[in-house]
Structures are given as C-alpha cells and as structure tokens.
C-alpha cells in the first residue's frame, strides 16, 4: 500500500490544530517525512522491534477453531506476543526513535485501554525520556493493572476527569500538555488518528504487522487469505495488518467496531458500522464521529476500553467510503463468548479489543468454504483485562479473592 503523503485521505483527515501547535506539527511532519524516505530509519526500527519486542510475531494456525467452526481455515496474527502485550509497541518504538532524532527529552501520551500507556512508559524507560500519561478516570478504573505498571515503569499517570472521562478526553488533555511543553516534548499519539501526520505515521509504523502477515501466509499457504479481520478503535492495528493486503483487491478486509450493548441501543462505539456516525471535526482531524445533532461528541460504550472511542482514523473513514473495507460490529456479549471460545479451543487469551475481531470472524467463518482462508489480527493479550473479564463472567472465586485481599489491606492500615 502506498500510504498517502498528503494531509487528507479522500475528504477525511487534515490538521485542525491551534496555531500554538503549528510549529511543532511542522517540525514533526518534517522529521517524519525525512525518516520515511530514509531506508536506514526503517531498518533500525525493524531491528529494534526484533531484538526488543520479539518480532516477527508468529502467524498461528488455529486448527481447533477451524475444525469447530467448520468453514474457512483460520490463522491468527499474534500481536499479543509483543513486548508489553499488544501491537501498540510498534508505533511507540517508531515514534520513540523519531523523538530521539528530534532531540526531545520528554514524551507524553493518552491512553484508553492502558496498553498504549504501558508501551509508551516502557519506551520512555528504555530511551531515557521523562514520561507522563493521560488517562480518563473511567479507564483508570477498569484498567488498573496497566496504571500500576506505568507507574512502576517511571511514568506519571494523570487521571483525566473532564468530559466523558475516557479516551477522547485524554487526547484533549495531552494536547493541552503539549501546548506548554512542545519544545522539549513529543506527543506519542497512540492510534492512527489526530492531526496529520499522526494518522499516516502511526499507520506506517504499524504496517510492519501487515508486511509480516503477508509474507507468513504466503510461506505457509502459498496464497493470499480471502478475508482479514481486525478490531477498530482508533484504527492502528487494523491499518497495520490491512496495509499488507490493501493492494490485493481480492482480499476482503473487515474492520470490527465495538457493538457494545447493540447498535440500536445507542450504547456502542460503532462509528462506521452503525448509522449513528457523522462527519465532524475534533481531536485535530476531520473524520466520522459519534456526535449529537449539535456536533457534541457523544458518550460511547464498550466492554473494551481500547475501542471505546468516538472518532476513527480518517484513513479508515476514507477506505470505508471507497468500500475497500467492510465495517461490522460485535456486541459485548458476543465478545465475551468469543474470548471464552478462543481460550478453550486454542489456549490463547485475546484482549477484549482483539476479541471483537474474533467474534466477527466466528460469525462468518462457518458460512465460508473450507478452501477459504481467514486471518484474524490478535492485537493484544487479555491479561490486562482480568478485572473486566472476571466481572463479565461473574467469577465468584475472583470476587472472594478480591474481598479477602481488601480485608488484608484494611487490617494493615
């Protein structure tokens, strides 16, 4: 895929930034474009990912799921095996190398699920940057283990209590920090959203996933897959894997959004798969948002913090409009069921985010021919979701354990 080297993707994208940030964006754009046209930069990046994060991640044949569902042959791209447990590290190391090139001393980032926060804190520790992370209060509550590790990695975690207290508010808060600190600081945006060059740059770093996946499926099957599934929060993991197949018109690309309690309940985060998304401008970009008639961003809902976001990558909004990608949604219940099945059948623990891609693939695979091939992107591992999953499954033993632990803590005070 030749990623556009322009600010717009069809009618989406742009650079809607306050003038205070313009210089920073110019500087970033220049550094990014220089890095991008310097093959040594990519090589250094790929080498770093190999020796630090364990790339290439494997493409695992899901033999049991294939047999159980009785349709297409299912492969899983294992981004969960990355250091820090998700694809987020790809982008973060890329931006970290860029920030070093730009001579920055400090990095800041927003995070929803906390994976991007952990990845950024990790990179900051490794590269010697100071680090602050902004995270919505709602997300801090449901992803406490990630907050814990960010802090232990030396990052300061700022709890954002504005607005809906989720990802979009964390993004705004990070931009506010940047407006003061840009001289010394790089904002490591975590997904393929925000003002140019972020969408394109993040998609570029994540394209390492698609490059590998394409090579791997050709190695084992000697042909391309028929369908590729990825979950879609901001859009970075999906663009990452899709990029490998973008120019192969026969490969169907399926983006799976958070269906929450159902597309007709208003409690979801499906910007493209539902009828509720409308074009708008926020977080520095023009794209499809879940917003009111008045253009106010809505509260979204998803069991997975990482997909619980009002906006979507402008690159995806464009590919949706151009019908290159089909968008679907999986509900919270379907996702928990898919997680359960993946655990039982393959011994893998997809993150709740990734489990959306699994859920949709599981719905469609049985109706496919045995000669068809599916690739599912497992964007991360679900360890971090233990509190959410335990709650969703109403695990009594876990509750008892927590209650007892709480009693110990209380007694110790």
């Amino acid at each position, binding site marked *: 895929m030749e990623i556009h080297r322009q600010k717009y993707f069809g009618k989406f994208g*742009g*650079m*809607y*930034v*306050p*003038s*205070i*940030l*313009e*210089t*920073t964006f110019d500087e970033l754009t220049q550094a990014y474009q220089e890095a991008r046209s310097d093959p040594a930069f990519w090589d250094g990046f790929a080498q770093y990912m190999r020796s630090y994060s364990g790339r290439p991640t494997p493409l695992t044949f899901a033999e049991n799921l294939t047999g159980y569902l009785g349709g297409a042959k299912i492969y899983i791209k294992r981004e969960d095996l990355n250091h820090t447990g998700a694809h987020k590290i790809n982008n973060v190391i890329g931006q970290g190398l860029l920030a070093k090139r730009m001579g920055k001393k400090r990095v800041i980032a927003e995070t929803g699920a906390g994976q991007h926060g952990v990845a950024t804190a990790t990179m900051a520790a490794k590269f010697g940057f100071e680090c602050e992370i902004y995270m919505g209060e709602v997300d801090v509550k449901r992803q406490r283990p990630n907050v814990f590790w960010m802090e232990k990695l030396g990052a300061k975690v700022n709890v954002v209590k*504005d*607005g*809906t207290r989720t990802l*979009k*508010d964390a*993004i*705004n808060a990070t*931009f*506010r920090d940047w*407006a*003061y*600190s*840009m*001289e010394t600081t790089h904002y490591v945006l975590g997904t393929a959203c925000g003002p140019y060059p972020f969408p394109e740059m993040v998609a570029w770093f994540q394209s390492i996933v698609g490059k590998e996946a394409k090579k791997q499926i050709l190695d084992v099957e000697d042909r391309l897959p028929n369908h590729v599934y990825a979950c879609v929060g901001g859009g970075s993991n999906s663009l990452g894997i899709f990029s490998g197949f973008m120019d192969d018109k026969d490969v169907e690309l399926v983006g799976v959004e958070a269906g929450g309690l159902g597309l007709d309940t208003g409690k979801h985060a499906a910007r493209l798969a539902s009828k509720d998304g*409308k074009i*708008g*401008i*926020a*977080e*520095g970009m*023009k794209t499809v*948002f879940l*917003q009111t*008639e*008045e*253009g*106010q*961003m809505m509260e979204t809902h998803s069991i997975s913090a990482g997909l619980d976001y009002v906006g979507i990558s402008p690159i995806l909004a464009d590919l949706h409009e151009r019908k290159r990608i089909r968008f679907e949604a999986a509900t919270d219940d379907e996702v928990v069921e898919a997680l359960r099945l993946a655990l039982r059948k393959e011994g893998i623990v997809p993150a709740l985010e990734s489990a959306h891609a699994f859920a949709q693939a599981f719905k469609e695979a049985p109706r496919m021919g045995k000669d068809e091939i599916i690739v599912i992107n497992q964007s991360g591992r679900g360890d971090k979701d233990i509190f959410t999953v335990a709650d969703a499954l109403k695990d009594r033993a876990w509750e008892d354990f927590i209650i007892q632990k709480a009693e110990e803590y209380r007694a110790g005070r």
Partner: protein
Amino acid sequence: MLEDRIRAARKRKRLLLMPHLVLGYPSFESNRELIRTMVESGADIIEMQIPFSDPMADGPVILKANDAAVRNGVTTSQCLAFAKEICALYPETIFLFMTYANVPFVYGLENFVKVAADAGILGLIIPDLPPEEGAEYLSACERNDVAPIFLFTPTNTPERLRVLASYCRGLVYCVGRTGVTGIKTKIDDALGAMIQRYKSMTTLPIGLGFGLQSKKDIDALPKDVDIAIIGTKILTLHNEGGAKAVGQFLRELAA
C-alpha cells in the same frame, strides 16, 4: 467592520477590555445578567464561547464550563438566538463568537457565519480551524463581513505569523506564552519584545490574552497592546462571586 469599530473605540480609550464567557453556563439567564454587568462595568468587546464537548485549547476552568453547558443541552441555535437578542440590546458593545470547528461545521458553516453576522456578531475565533483548513470559512466570513480572527503565538515562526496575518481580520489574538487558556503570563521585557514582533507583522489592533489577573498586569502591559483579553480570571470570579464580582473586577481594570 470589526477593525473599524475597534479603532473607533480605541480612540476613546487607551486599552479596550475583552472579557469572555461560556454561553449557557451556568444558564442563559445568568449569561444575560453577566453581560449586562460587563457592559455596565466597562467591557468593550465580549467574547461569547459556544460550548463544545472537546475544547482542546482550553484549560481546566473553561473546560469545566464547556462540559456543564454541553450537559445542559445548550444548542447552537440557542446561542445564535441569544446573540441576536444581546447584540440588539447592547449596540455599543462589540460581540464575538469563540467556538471549535465542529460546531459551525455540523450546523453548516456557510449558514452559521451568515446567521451570526445577521445577529450582529462581528468576529469569530475558532482555534482549531487554521486558515489552511478554512477556505469555506474564510470566504463565508468575507461575504458576510465577519472577521475571522486568528491567534499569534510565541512558537509561530515569522513566516507563519505573516500567513496568519494575511487571513486575519478585525484584530489579532496574541498569546502571551505557550499553553492553553488559564495560565498566568509573566509581563516582562520578553513580552514587550514579543508584542513588537507581532506588531511588525500586522496593522490590525493587538489583543493580548491568556492569564491576565489584576490591574497591576494591565498597567504593565506593553503600550502596543490595544485590547486586554480576560478569560479564565473572569470565569473564576463569576464561579466564586457571581456577576457582581466580575463587575467589580472590570471596573477596577477600567479605572
């Protein structure tokens, strides 16, 4: 039009005062009282912010007001109607709109500018809509004789300032330091130099904003500043002491 009105006002007064408020926060009723007080206490220009759920360039105080107003269900149409009422009520005062790009975009940009102009609004401040993204906006402003106001900030290069100046009308909104609203500007020689730099790029009146706190700050302002823009301080005063406190503060500044 805006520029003329400002120049005219400036003739009568060394420094114009431009306080800020968030529409629908805590209510339109309260806005009416506040604006009356502002007008009576010496405000020359009033910046009315149409609330938005994601005000990325605002600090915590204004942010909270936006949140509350959005939760109150404030609509763009209400704000436009309110502006019409107020502009008619205080024809001597200059009213501007401040908001974020999505509000006019979703309302319909062309229409938004027209209705605002008809209401009597003389200028628009949309911090997340740089000129490069605003072709439609700029032409609508031109057609409706509304001033598109852009921000000059310390980090902008001279080339950038020249570009901004070329699109800016009415006044330039100058930022005293890096950062979002609500942080105090240190008024010292560096600021004077900065204003000089801004001044060399434009012939428009200079508004200086972000962080003014007291009469002392006002007195120390470089002489090239035409307008003192006061946002967070006003909102904080209003939150704590109501319109009365705002009035008292403005009167002090104007004294």
